[in-house]
């Protein structure tokens, strides 16, 4: 909703738990004036016929997030030897 150049809404991220015991998954974004309104809108902007168990909303501005360029997410050296699968692969290569 806008009044001239003024915008009253902000994006809210919506997370849905589809099954009991399973984690809440990111579902979509809704624009809303506040948390309560975001939740009301989210309730009819996710697939309610799939009978979600629970919905969370949070303003996008509340999240701290990484950028795609973030180098601290990628290991700088090869650490494949830390995975069990690595040794299975190595053993297979030896027998061949």
């Amino acid at each position: 909703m806008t009044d001239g150049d003024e915008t009253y809404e902000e994006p809210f991220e919506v997370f849905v738990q589809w099954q009991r015991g399973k984690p809440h998954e990111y579902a979509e974004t809704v624009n809303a004036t506040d948390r309560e309104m975001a939740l009301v809108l989210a309730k009819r902007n996710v697939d309610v016929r799939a009978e979600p168990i629970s919905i969370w909303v949070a303003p996008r501005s509340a999240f701290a997030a990484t950028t795609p360029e973030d180098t601290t997410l990628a290991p700088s050296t090869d650490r494949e030897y830390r995975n069990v699968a690595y040794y299975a692969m190595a053993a297979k290569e030896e027998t061949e």
Partner: protein
Amino acid sequence: MSMTGENLQRETDAVTTLLLSMGDDEFVTGHRMSYWVSRGPSIEEDNAVSSIVQDELGHARLWFEVLTERADVSLVELAVERPAERRRNTVLAEPAYAGFGDLVVRNFLYDEAERLLVEAVHGGDDDVLADRAGVVLNEEPYHREHAALWLDRLTASDEGVSRLTRAFDTNVPHATDYFAFEESVASTLESEGVVDRAFDDLQQEWADRVVERVRTLGLELERSPRELVAAAPTTNGRLGEHTDELTAMTRQNLTVY
């Protein structure tokens, strides 16, 4: 096309009148509200409103279906072909909307009244109606929540306050027919236990809720809210009295189905 509704004992049977009233309320409200699909303030709101529209049309079907089981009449005859003069909906549902604030106020007035009537049917002795009332009541909290949140938020600006004020001024007088059933119909439904509360009692509770809401919203209406809710309806949809806007709507529906 058959003579729509001819097979209904419509003037004599109180339950038939009640079912037509509740079904027409939902059908006309749902049909009108579909105007907002693609015209809401945001696409998220379009989705929310269209979901409410689907609920209301589904509820119309629930009530009309009971009539198809009890008389030789079809859903299409009841929902689409029946002309305005045989409709029993509240005139609150009839006019085109003056704006989004108008939609919110109309939904508030309607949802509060509907809750009271449908709860009374849910607590009543007609098991078929009571069961279906339970289904309707299940879906209504979202409608009330949606209207309640928007009412509070629209008071955030002067523009919103003036739109809400105008909407209450124009719509409350249209809503006063909601419980104004013909005396013989009301007394039959009460004495036969189809509703578990008297219509006067329901009307009083609705009036109190509306007055209280106008007060908490801080709106200053043209007339006192207490006077507005207590005034007798000038056009009473429960008696088959309707506005030209309903006639136009039912005629248009006949051309497009």
